[in-house]
């Protein structure tokens, strides 16, 4: 593609740009339309998450984990809380486990809806974005019903959950699932199989499995390249091993495996899988059980360190927590999946056109809050 060597032009897809999913600056060296090199410049949204953790107690860190990946903050809480409970060897009651899985899966659907919607916007289709936000609005209502907040919940605490489920919660989620499942087919009609969309995304930004693994890419981006790796299945935490759902993997139905379309379609399939998990969780959630029962009075984990990964909608969300016995964490490191996804952008969008760079960036589904921490 870029064989003609015209005079290079450096283009700043600057921190203030409609399709950078946050405050990200891409220094793009283009030769006419064809892109020859991209250097992402990050750090505009750096809020010293790790420094804050060292100055606050263990339960005060939870509102900060919300604000890292603000689109999937339930899963962020879940990751941190699972790591802490493994460090402090706290056994959480059954009902709390089920509540957490329900909340995490609902949040996964909401996060994927946002990812698919904004990807439609990057490629130029306005309407799917609004359909998906209409359905995401329903999930946010459910969260609001339980923990009052719509985006940053601070719902999962170490050893329990902040509030028990309200009356009529299970029916409300059943209503939502019955309403939502036919809608996924509607998204497929309007966007997934749309020839122009396929034309824009098939064979674009192909990510080979070896490259993906070497760049530490994880989650839907890695599964889009055909690697079957999902922490809920391979390193099960909480009660995920009780649910049977399969891990969708990109097969290259439209172009080669690992292109933008595959990453998009893997997310659509994952939404369907999440509804399956939700139905099973809702079926056998124990009706009784106090959610505050296992909340430790004084959180003083034993000296030591732990690295625990969980499956956030964007990939492997890892927490490396080092405790020195005091109520304040000695060091908390958050391994952010979007950080690794962005590092692979340059690798896979070299030689493509400018509008493809936007398409590839959208398909990687990055969130800058999590990258900059």
């Amino acid at each position, binding site marked *: 593609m870029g064989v003609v060597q015209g005079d290079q032009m450096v283009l700043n897809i600057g921190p203030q740009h409609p399709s950078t999913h946050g405050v990200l600056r891409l220094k793009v060296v283009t030769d006419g339309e064809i892109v020859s090199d991209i250097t992402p410049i990050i750090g505009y949204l750096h809020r010293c998450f790790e420094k804050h953790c060292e100055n606050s107690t263990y339960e*005060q860190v939870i509102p900060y984990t919300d604000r890292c990946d603000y689109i999937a903050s339930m899963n962020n809480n879940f990751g941190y809380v699972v790591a802490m409970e493994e460090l402090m060897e706290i056994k959480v009651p059954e009902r709390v486990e089920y509540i957490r899985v329900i909340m995490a899966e609902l949040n996964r659907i909401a996060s994927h809806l946002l990812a698919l919607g904004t990807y439609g916007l990057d490629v130029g289709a306005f309407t799917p974005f609004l359909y998906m936000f*209409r359905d995401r609005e329903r999930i946010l*209502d459910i969260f609001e019903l339980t923990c*009052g907040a719509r985006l940053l919940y601070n719902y999962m605490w170490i050893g329990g959950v902040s509030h028990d489920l*309200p009356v009529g919660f299970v029916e409300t989620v059943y209503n939502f699932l019955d309403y939502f499942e036919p809608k996924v087919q509607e998204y497929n009609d*309007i966007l997934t199989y749309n020839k122009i969309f396929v034309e824009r995304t098939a064979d674009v930004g192909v990510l080979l499995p070896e490259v993906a693994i070497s760049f530490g890419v994880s989650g839907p981006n890695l599964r889009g390249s055909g690697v079957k790796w999902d922490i809920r299945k391979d390193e099960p935490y909480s009660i995920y091993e009780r649910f049977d759902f399969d891990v969708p993997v990109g097969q290259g139905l439209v172009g080669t495996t690992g292109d933008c379309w595959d990453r998009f379609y893997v997310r659509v399939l994952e939404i369907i899988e999440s509804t399956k998990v939700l139905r099973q969780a809702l079926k056998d959630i124990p009706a009784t059980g106090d959610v505050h029962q296992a909340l430790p009075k004084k959180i003083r984990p034993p000296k030591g360190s732990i690295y625990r990964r969980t499956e956030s909608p964007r990939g492997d969300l890892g927490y490396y927590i080092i405790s020195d016995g005091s109520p304040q964490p000695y060091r908390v490191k958050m391994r952010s999946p979007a950080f690794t996804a962005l590092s692979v952008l340059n690798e896979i969008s070299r030689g493509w056109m400018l509008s493809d760079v936007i398409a590839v960036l959208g398909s990687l589904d990055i969130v800058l809050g999590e990258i900059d921490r």
Partner: protein
Amino acid sequence: MFKYLATIWETVTTLLTGMGVTWRHMLAIRRDNVTLQYPEERWPRPERNIGFDHDKYNVIRSRLHVDIDDCIGCLKCERVCPVNCIKIDTVKVLNRGADIPNIRHKGITSFGTKKALVVTRFDIDMTECCYCNLCVYPCPEECIYMTGGPNAEKHDIDYEFSEYDRNDLIYRFAKKVSDEDVANATTEPQEVAD
């Protein structure tokens, strides 16, 4: 040649199905609409299409409110706040549980515990508050809470508390009493030692 026609055929069919979807949505205007016409329709509107209603609320994230008469000054909410937006000053009381009328201090809280401290300053800076609700949980007297929701009988939901001046967002819940009143109310009267 066949492939050429096949792509044309596929293009036309997929584009038409897409147009069919938007056509159906255009006809059913009100069916899936979630927008809330804010000034006229205020949240929470009970029958808002997923059908949960007002009094089933578990918790509300709106403005913080403190019943200062119930506050025993244990500083638990101040310690647990991640962004330390709560500042409390207290002064020891002479005898526990006694009312002190001239500084309007009630000795017994509604939970029946005797107060040992007069809360002279209880400020919450709502510009710093991150609405994480961590302060509501540890309060022994349940006197700090967010307005509306389960404690709707005390306050209805209030999420429209924007101000013109930032300092007005610093809520001072303590009773407005001058310092020397508090001083002589809580110190031993030197000459009379009854």
